[in-house]
């Protein structure tokens, strides 16, 4: 820069000092210390040999140590290409057929992200019409049971299917006499596959048996040769029902279907009050008996007499020869005669004579063709007791025996122990989803796919076909038995094609097979068209008249008196002979003072198949409320006389068998009987849940003629002097407080369960339902403002049977933990929905004076909720839709809310059920990896120390609300269903929006005079409305009067 600048910044510039000029050229005046700053030494990067070795050594060790830690691999892979049917977060529903029992109820299975998580009834299915029993719903949990057989195995250990095929190919190649043993197979394709397979052998037989058999009922209704048939019962058309020992609302054949029908007749229209009259004559207190209008307890031997008396009443108008509570029989007969063609007489005893007499009575009453449908009969009981007994005798003569579909005769056949012994020399093959007593003795144990992993079909009634479709690819190395048999019979077709072939045969729809098949898979159910028309004809047919002839159902008429005086002996079926046999059986039975044994099927574990299902083990028995055990029920009077208490163990022997089991004192049980349920006392191979629970009573089943008999004579009873704890969810029975019983009964009838009789209801729609006068209802609290929706529920106590289906539904929907026997014992079961059972009347009553009441109890979502005010940190608050919400994240677990809940519906997480090892076995659906697949992702698994309770299935409300919102509308009435409501086979639960004036629920709240709230005078203003129980009972039916009139 030169001096000729006119402007200058400073003297340095003006003088143009060389340092300055240099400085102007360089951006930085001084040398930057780049070299020093970023040198290896300064940064500590220089590594000498020693440091290098140190670091290298450390690194190596660290890497080795880290590698030793087993980190669980968690696969969470998003869909690259989204499958068409799976939207994450949105449930898909598939129609299928329940695999719980032979009833073949139509179900819809909920699938989330490819895993089935819940089973609900299919409303479009003609049989169960939306209801499913507890056992059926619980089968979804069996899919994830870790006790499942995961791969086929032989005596030497695990096998591959290729090995199995080869090994069995050899076995079958040399076999001549082969048997396939199974319980009733309702699948038409399955039946065909079996017969196809058996044709391979010169002497192949298919033996079907049912652990709890209906063979006698089927025998009197079958023509021999073809399928065993049982009438299709139409309880929805039955105005009078007389049941002898048949638990048709529980375990008898098809519980949900019958409950649906029965409840239709219990629906009370306030404008035309009418309802069925239900008589029950039974020995033990069954679920059905507890719902009957008039229930007469009687010993099994007396049942025969009662049946004879009823027969005589109906046919000849005299009940001579029977000294039982004749008035009840007279009343039943009178009611039946008034409702000819609109009644059902049903008997649950597996005895040909009794069934024959029942058939005669029904025929006389013209019920066949009306309430009993023989043109579309039930195929649900194909079990042949006689065939089974013969097979068991000759089992050693067979070359190979295949036990299909979890069939377990070693356990559930009366001669199981001998059978197991005789099987030793036979090539035995077991096919099942789970190990059991039979698989234990079989040479080959083949892993069967669960019903939710299988293709299949079912034909529960002649004209009703339903489809079973797989919801998930088999979790383990399993096959369907149909698939295998098909393969082994040399048929090259796949099972899927085979089923399609069967269905092509029933396509009467007139449309192409493709569309018929697709439609069938979609709806899950098909009613074969042509025959359907015939049904309606029959049903409508009042025109049967005297000329009606139901084929072989013409029946003898006759009156059997003391001298067995046969009046009109004309018969193709010898009812008179049966009456005679029964009459003498009754007379001998009456003379013997000994105890009679009653063996029954429990409503949850059923025949024992569901024994390893924790939901069912923890489901309380509807009557005794016992979980996790079977027990001997003892009539109240006898137990009091002996000074026995619940849980004391007694040893009882009948025939050659003898068992020791705890007792439960059962009010209302017939004097002189002891009752116990089958399905318990299982081997440890069945899994950790059910093993060792209760005692096995199948060895006490006996043979009577060609049938299994579930009754016997108790040879000896000895009290062992020991006492075990029975885990009951309801410990108070009513008889403990002998002196205060009246007081408690008043409490129940005034504040908790209100009831009336039909006669009183006809006079006054509000009878039995004394509401508080309005000035009692003044509240100091502000009314909650509910602008949008106001959710509320109504429960019709007249329809609720107490079956417990809602409890399992709630368990599945809301991820409720199973806590095990020990915790139930300390009254910590977690069920959000429970069914309270109360008895009314004298517990020792034997003449119809004892009544049972069932009341579903869940969070009442009170408007003035006592829980909401006391909780210190606002973890339970009221929503503006009327829901009482429990905020798990906010809950600190003071339990104050639970203490202050008058309904005691709040449940506390006493332990970390999903983490604590003590709950590993029973709560595997929260604790184990595979088990967790059953959890509903919409509902949180609650942490320890948190209170929980019924949410009115808020996730289901939200789901449907969102759907409605996207469609720019309000949710329709009935669109939102809570889990309990959906599963209820008797439609006792109604849920909806009170702000919607047209909704069913708001009409009930406003107009139904039967509506009341439990504990109304606590002024909690619940959002659950109960509707008075109405019994179709006359004054004359009351306790005592029957006996008196009879004398």
């Amino acid at each position: 820069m030169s001096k000729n600048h006119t402007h200058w910044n400073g003297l340095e510039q003006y003088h143009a000092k060389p340092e300055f000029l240099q400085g102007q050229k360089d951006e930085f005046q001084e040398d930057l210390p780049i070299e020093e700053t970023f040198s290896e030494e300064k940064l500590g990067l220089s590594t000498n040999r020693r440091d290098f070795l140190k670091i290298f050594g450390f690194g190596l060790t660290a890497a080795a140590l880290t590698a030793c830690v087993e980190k669980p691999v968690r696969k969470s892979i998003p869909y690259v290409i989204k499958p068409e049917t799976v939207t994450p977060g949105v449930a898909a529903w598939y129609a299928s057929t329940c695999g719980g029992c032979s009833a073949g109820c139509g179900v819809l299975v909920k699938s989330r992200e490819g895993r089935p998580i819940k089973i609900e009834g299919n409303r479009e299915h003609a049989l169960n019409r939306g209801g499913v029993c507890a056992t059926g719903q619980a089968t979804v949990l069996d899919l994830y049971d870790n006790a499942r057989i995961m791969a086929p195995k032989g005596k030497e250990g695990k096998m591959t299917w290729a090995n199995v095929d080869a090994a069995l190919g050899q076995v079958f190649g040399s076999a001549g006499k082969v048997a396939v043993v199974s319980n009733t197979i309702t699948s038409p394709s399955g039946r065909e596959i079996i017969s196809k397979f058996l044709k391979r052998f010169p002497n192949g037989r298919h033996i079907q048996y049912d652990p709890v058999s209906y063979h006698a009922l089927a025998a009197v209704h079958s023509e021999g040769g073809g399928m065993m048939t049982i009438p299709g019962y139409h309880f929805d058309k039955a105005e009078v029902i007389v049941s002898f020992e048949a638990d048709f609302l529980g375990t008898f054949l098809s519980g949900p279907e019958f409950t649906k029908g029965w409840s239709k007749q219990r629906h009370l229209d306030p404008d035309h009050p009418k309802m069925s009259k239900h008589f029950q004559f039974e020995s033990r207190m069954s679920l059905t008996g507890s719902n009957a209008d008039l229930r007469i307890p009687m010993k099994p031997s007396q049942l025969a007499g009662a049946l004879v008396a009823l027969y005589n009443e109906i046919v000849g108008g005299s009940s001579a020869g029977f000294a039982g509570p004749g008035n009840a029989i007279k009343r039943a007969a009178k009611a039946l005669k008034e409702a000819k063609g609109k009644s059902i007489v049903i008997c649950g005893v597996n005895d040909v004579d009794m069934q024959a007499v029942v058939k005669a009575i029904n025929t006389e009453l013209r019920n066949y063709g009306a309430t009993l449908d023989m043109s579309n009969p039930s195929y649900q009981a194909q079990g042949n007791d006689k065939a089974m007994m013969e097979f068991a005798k000759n089992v050693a003569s067979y070359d190979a025996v295949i036990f299909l579909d979890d069939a377990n005769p070693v356990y559930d056949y009366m001669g199981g122990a001998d059978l197991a012994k005789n099987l030793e020399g036979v090539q035995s093959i077991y096919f099942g989803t789970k190990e059991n007593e039979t698989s234990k003795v079989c040479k080959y144990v083949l892993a069967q796919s669960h019903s939710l992993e299988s293709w299949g079909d079912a034909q529960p009634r002649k004209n009703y076909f339903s489809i079973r479709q797989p919801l998930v690819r088999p979790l383990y190395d399993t096959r369907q038995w149909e698939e295998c048999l098909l393969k082994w019979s040399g048929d090259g077709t796949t099972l899927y094609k085979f089923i399609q072939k069967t269905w092509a045969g029933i396509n009467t729809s007139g449309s192409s097979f493709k569309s018929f098949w697709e439609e069938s898979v979609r709806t899950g159910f098909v009613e074969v068209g042509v025959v359907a028309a015939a049904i309606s004809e029959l049903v409508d047919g009042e025109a049967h008249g005297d000329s009606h002839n139901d084929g072989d159902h013409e029946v003898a008429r006759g009156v059997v008196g003391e001298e067995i005086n046969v009046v009109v002996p004309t018969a193709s079926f010898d009812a008179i002979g049966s009456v005679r046999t029964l009459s003498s059986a009754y007379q001998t039975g009456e003379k013997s003072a000994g105890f009679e044994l009653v063996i029954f099927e429990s409503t949850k574990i059923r025949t024992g198949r569901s024994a390893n299902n924790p939901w069912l083990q923890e489901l309380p028995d509807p009557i005794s409320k016992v979980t996790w055990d079977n027990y001997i029920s003892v009539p109240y009077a006898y137990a009091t006389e002996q000074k026995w208490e619940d849980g004391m163990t007694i040893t009882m022997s009948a025939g050659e068998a003898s068992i020791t089991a705890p007792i439960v004192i059962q009010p209302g049980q017939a004097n002189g009987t002891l009752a116990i349920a089958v399905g318990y006392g299982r081997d440890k191979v069945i899994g950790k849940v059910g093993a060792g629970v209760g005692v096995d009573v199948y060895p006490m089943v006996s043979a009577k003629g060609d049938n299994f008999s579930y009754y016997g004579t108790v040879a000896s009873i000895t009290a062992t002097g020991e006492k075990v704890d029975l885990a009951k969810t309801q410990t108070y029975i009513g008889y403990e407080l002998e002196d205060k019983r009246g007081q408690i009964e008043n409490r129940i009838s005034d504040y908790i369960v209100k009831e009336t009789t039909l006669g009183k209801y006809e006079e006054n729609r509000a009878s039995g339902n004394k509401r508080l006068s309005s000035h009692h209802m003044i509240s100091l609290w502000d009314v909650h403002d509910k602008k949008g929706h106001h959710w509320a529920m109504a429960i019709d106590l007249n329809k609720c049977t107490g079956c417990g289906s809602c409890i399992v539904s709630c368990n599945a929907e809301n991820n409720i933990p199973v806590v095990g026997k020990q915790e139930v014992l300390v009254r910590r079961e977690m069920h959000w929905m429970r069914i309270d059972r109360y008895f009314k009347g004298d517990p020792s009553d034997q003449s119809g004076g004892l009544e049972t009441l069932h009341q579903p109890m869940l969070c009442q979502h009170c408007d003035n909720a006592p829980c909401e005010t006391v909780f210190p940190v606002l973890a339970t608050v009221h929503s503006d839709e009327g829901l009482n919400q429990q905020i798990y994240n906010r809950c600190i677990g003071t339990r104050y809310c639970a203490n202050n809940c008058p309904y005691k519906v709040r449940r506390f997480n006493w332990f970390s059920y999903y983490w604590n090892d003590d709950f590993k076995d029973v709560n595997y659906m929260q604790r184990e990896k595979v088990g967790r697949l059953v959890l509903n992702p919409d509902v949180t698994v609650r942490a320890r120390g948190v209170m929980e309770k019924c949410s009115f299935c808020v996730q289901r409300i939200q789901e449907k609300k969102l759907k409605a919102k996207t469609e720019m509308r309000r949710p329709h009435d009935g669109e939102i269903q809570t889990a309990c409501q959906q599963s209820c086979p008797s439609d006792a639960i109604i849920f909806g929006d009170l702000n919607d004036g047209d909704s069913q629920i708001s009409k009930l709240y406003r107009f139904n005079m039967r509506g009341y709230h439990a504990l109304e005078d606590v002024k909690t203003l619940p959002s659950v409305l109960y509707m008075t129980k109405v019994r179709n009972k006359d004054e004359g039916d009351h306790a005592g009067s029957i006996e008196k009139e009879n004398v």
Partner: protein
Amino acid sequence: MSTYISPIRNVEVQGGMNYHDVTETVLKPLESKPNKLWLMALGLSSIALAIGLYCIGYSLFVGIGTWGLDKTVGWAFDITNFVFWVGIGHAGTLISAILLLFRQTWRNSINRSAEAMTIFAVICAALFPLIHMGRPWLGAIWVFPIPNTRGPLWVNFNSPLLWDVFAISTYFSVSLVFWYLGLVPDFATVRDRAKNKIAKAVYGSLALGWNGSARTWYRFELVSLILAGLATPLVLSVHTIVSFDFATSVMPGWHTTIFPPYFVAGAIFSGFGMVQTLLVVMRKVYKLENMITMGHMEAMAKIVLLTGSLVGIAYGTEFLMAWYSGNHFESFAFVNRAFGPYAWAYWIMISCNVITPQLYWFKKVRTNMLLTFILSIFVNIGMWFERFVIIVTSLHRDYLPSSWSYYEPTWIEFGILLGTFGIFFTFFFLFAKFFPTVNMFEVKTIIHLPTQEEKTHEQQPAEVPVG
């Protein structure tokens, strides 16, 4: 000394003690080496404390399920212990605050230990609302109205449990300050007499530079009076609020308007019971009979008699109202209480709280220290059972018979109960060793120094009952 002493004025310090005697007697245990008896007692109570800590730790780790509670009985030992210990604390505040306001100078020799008892009892009590929670690690924070980022998420001012939080924390702070303030002049005495450096430093800092000037004394007296004024309503409010936990609920047996006065009477009753238990032993072991005189013991016995009878009347009133209300649930709850499955607990309560204290009508009983000790233990037992009866019998058979149950405690709960006694006595023994157990400066204000006349006549003052 030529002050006039009224002949009707009670002689509250006996044995002709002078100022020096008082200091010597009170500070003897503090300044001497611990004796074997004390070491044994401390050892035992520490063992109890350790058991308690183990049980608390176990239930925190595994869950409340380790206790015997169920879906119907959500509170039992936990809240029983809570109310029991809060009640114990009441006598301390009553003695220190209310009796101060009423110028009952006889309280001067017992208020220190009674207040110490209050502090330790409230510590035991405060433990339970914390550990009874399912998730105390969250609850301990959330029960305080601390501003947070969660918007309107706040505590529920409707909840009596929240009122408890405020009531107990206020009570504890006021009691602690009051107690500590009263200790300051005595700490100064200890400081002045301390021979070892550490003791001097520790007591010196505890004494907060107390110099004993008239101005300091004046301010001290004034603050004491103000604190007494503040503490007095607390005597009534704390237990009133504790009783609201039950009274505001809807449970039959809990939902009773009589609860506030009934609980306060019960609390004073149980508090004095505990003071009796402690003082009978302490005055004997530490030879404080001249300061904690028979007159004191008798006065306390009379209060126990009075409050015990009040509680008895409350029991009767409850029954009467249950019958008179005509409410089915209410009358059932009370009949069930007396004749139901927990009748044994009810009758223990009645005998210990209502029947045995009636023995105090007899002077012979009041002045027999062994009997007083036994009766005071009965009072403690009875009052523990009173809370147990109220809580458990009301819950176990409430509205719906379907949910009725029978509660049985587990050993964990017994362990925790034992543990609170461990906490209480460990603290109390440490207090007895390291703190002046009798309020020396206040005792000195009421000391009766013999006049010249008395000296010449060697007249011993007659034993005059206090009160």
